[in-house]
């Protein structure tokens, strides 16, 4: 397309190529846990982005859940054991 050719002559700071976008989308796609198991060649960008959104939401929910469990466990743990763990890690 002629628009793409003229765009390549623009300044380097504003150049966004199709390859760059595809690289980023595939990089994102590599990070997602579900699509990795299936056929990973022909995944549309829309699907990758949808999976990304749902994955981020599930990660947020998991952080909430884990922080709740962690706060309960931190109360119940014996303080001497916690200080032992802490001193082991602070060496």
């Amino acid at each position, binding site marked *: 397309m002629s*628009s*793409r050719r003229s*765009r390549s002559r*623009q*300044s380097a*700071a*504003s150049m*966004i*190529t*199709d390859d*760059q*976008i595809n690289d*980023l*989308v595939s*990089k*994102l796609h590599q*990070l*997602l846990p579900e699509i990795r198991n299936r056929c990973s060649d022909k995944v549309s*960008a*829309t699907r990758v*982005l*949808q999976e*990304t*959104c749902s*994955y*981020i*939401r599930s*990660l*947020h929910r*998991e*952080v*909430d859940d*884990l*922080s*709740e*469990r*962690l*706060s*309960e*466990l*931190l*109360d119940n*743990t014996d303080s001497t*054991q*916690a200080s032992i*763990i*802490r001193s*082991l*890690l*602070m*060496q």
Partner: protein
Amino acid sequence: MSASQQLTPTNPNSALKIRLAYRFLLTLNTLNAKKPPNFDHTQIHRRSHRVKIAAYASMASVVGPKRAWSRAILWKIRNRGMLARNKKRIHRISTPIRLHRHHARRRRNPNRVVHVDPFVNSGLEVKLRKLVPGAETIDPCGLLDETADYIKYLATQVEVMRNLVDLYSTI
């Protein structure tokens, strides 16, 4: 012998996990030192909220100011008192735009015409900008990059917390 000498990570992911875990435990330590032990139900909810803030804060401070999402998280946490007070007011201070002044300059460039749009359906872009912190004023290309980085650190942080929960529940 320090702990960093004992652990020799073979791949960058485990090195990242170690850094995140160390920072998270450090933050939790300072958090636990302050609070008095109590078993009230409202306090339990507040404690879990503080653990959550510690998780995000430690994750963002490991990255530092290099990334837009880490800057946004640190800003939000440091100013959460002010944000809670301003929530009741009608007008909100648009400070995320103040932080990304260099991005705003880029957007005013008259030569820049975005022909390539990865977000064919723009509804997804809006959702993504809401989910990733500090992503409201980034160009679409940088948004994908920030998302990938954010997912990487967030997934590792979740793994660290899971391991901690396992560790504490078996002791």
